[in-house]
């Protein structure tokens, strides 16, 4: 028992160490370019963790999550530009709106399985993009169609979620990421987490054991779309410019799924691991081949995905977790006398 405690202590210490490093990084790393890359990395890890509630735990493959990013970004931006409402409040409004849309999308599509569900979510996501692109005014709200919306960088500060340096954005998205990781961790160990996994893997068996599979999936979808929309507001405030083609893009929906599948869907660490591995690929291929081979990163992702699915169908988190546990057990061996 005493030995077990030290092993747990070691795990907590290494988590703390990671925490100190990530929170201390901006003190050392002064380059705005690198901070920008890290902010996007955390953003994608956050988005993928939110996606994971449905795509990982509930075992379906949603490919339209960019729509929720868009709902979040447009809600807070319109409320701020037209009514002067703080983006923090707009963030919550966007989240609630996205949750409602998520439920509306989920109601018919969760009855479908496999590729049909994935295709249906692509259709919804693209449908929302095309609508935004072609609507200048939605009632009183100015969407500005294909031209997108620009947020003038006035009245910067925390209340308007707008800053002239990268550091505040870095800390905000880092805190959001830690929060969503904690949330997925608790859900995965809760009744809802068990029910989602069971319903995803063997729906008939789950139903016979008392699981209302459709309702659990809808709850997960509502949470997932709510959380995804929050990131949309963050992104809008980070770039101060939103544009239907770039924010409600299929490219974004796909990248989230790639990160999840390669990192390991359904696990807590998978989305972070996937983002750590794939974001640099994305960034560098855009920087160096953006003009000559603009889709290169997606081709690389596709190739990596094929390899990972052949050799590690549960994603890269599995072998890495195994190595980590081996290391942990080597550092603190099992005390004699216990099992």
């Amino acid at each position: 028992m005493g030995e077990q405690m030290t092993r747990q202590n070691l795990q907590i210490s290494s988590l703390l160490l990671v925490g100190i490093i990530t929170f201390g990084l901006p003190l050392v790393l002064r380059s705005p370019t690198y901070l920008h890359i890290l902010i996007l990395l955390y953003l994608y890890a956050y988005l993928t963790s939110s996606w994971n509630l449905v795509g990982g735990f509930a075992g379906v493959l949603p490919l339209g999550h960019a729509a929720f990013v868009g709902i979040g970004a447009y809600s807070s931006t319109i409320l701020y530009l037209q009514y002067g409402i703080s983006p923090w409040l707009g963030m919550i409004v966007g989240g609630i709106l996205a949750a409602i849309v998520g439920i509306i999308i989920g109601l018919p599509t969760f009855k479908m399985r496999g590729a049909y569900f994935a295709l249906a979510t692509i259709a919804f996501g693209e449908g929302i993009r095309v609508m935004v692109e072609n609507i200048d005014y939605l009632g009183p709200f100015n969407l500005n169609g294909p031209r997108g919306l620009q947020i003038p960088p006035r009245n910067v500060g925390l209340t308007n979620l707008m800053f002239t340096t990268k550091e505040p954005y870095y800390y905000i998205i880092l805190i959001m990421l830690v929060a969503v990781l904690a949330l997925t961790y608790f859900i995965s160990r809760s009744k809802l987490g068990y029910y989602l996994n069971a319903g995803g893997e063997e729906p008939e068996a789950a139903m016979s054991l008392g699981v209302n599979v459709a309702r659990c999936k809808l709850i997960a979808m509502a949470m997932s779309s709510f959380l995804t929309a929050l990131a949309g507001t963050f992104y809008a405030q980070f770039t101060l410019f939103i544009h239907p083609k770039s924010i409600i893009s299929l490219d974004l929906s796909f990248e989230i799924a790639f990160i999840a599948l390669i990192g390991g869907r359904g696990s807590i660490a998978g989305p972070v691991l996937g983002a750590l591995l794939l974001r640099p690929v994305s960034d560098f291929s855009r920087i160096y081949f953006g003009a000559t081979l603009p889709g290169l990163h997606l081709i690389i992702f596709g190739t990596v995905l094929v390899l990972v699915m052949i050799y590690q169908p549960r994603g890269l988190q599995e072998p890495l977790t195994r190595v980590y546990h081996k290391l942990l057990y080597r550092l603190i061996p099992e005390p004699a006398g216990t099992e």
Partner: protein
Amino acid sequence: MKILELKNLTKDFGGLRAVDNLNLSIDDGQILGLIGPNGAGKSTAFNCIAGVYPPSEGDIYFNGEKINNEKPWNLCKKGLARTFQIVKPFSSKSVLYNVMVGSFANKDKRADAEKKSLEILKYLHLEDKKDIRAGNLTIADRKRLEIARALATEPRLLLLDEVMAGLRPTEVDEMVEIIKNLRESGITVFVIEHIMRAIMALSDWIVVIHFGQKIAEGIPETVAADENVIKAYLGEEYGVS
């Protein structure tokens, strides 16, 4: 008291009548055996009772309440649990995880569900396999896991669909003991089984169906000697020659 009653239960699949005007009832605390040749409609009857398909005609009563169109998860909450003939474990998850899904039917906290599940695994002699991935279990253990999960929901009526198929004789004997113990603990058991030795040893009452229709019923000795039953089981072979 009747815990389950089927009144003229009929189920059609397109033009095929899988269950045909079936009437039967089970007393609280009884073990009822349902037998019949392959394709007789046994599993279909179970699926209707458990809420997988609504009956085409007829009524199903559980504890005196009509449950014709009730959903499987609600039936589970009312105390009706079942196993699947083709086992459906959550393969990527551990044995304990599988059973905990069942335990959550009556528990909200993880710790309570885990405690309950460990008790059940112990009862079914599966506790030393609790951390094994369900997909890696032997067929005998998978069948046992089906029962463990169903028991975890704390049922009053348990439907067992061929839980002994594919087991070795010693494993069959163990399973017979397990089912008898379940009845001792107050659970009513409705069992489909092809292994005659087991069904004869277990059942208080046996119903025989053929092409969806009831052709005989009675205590095991009577059914075993029934001419219609013998014909139904041997008929196919005579027909071929």
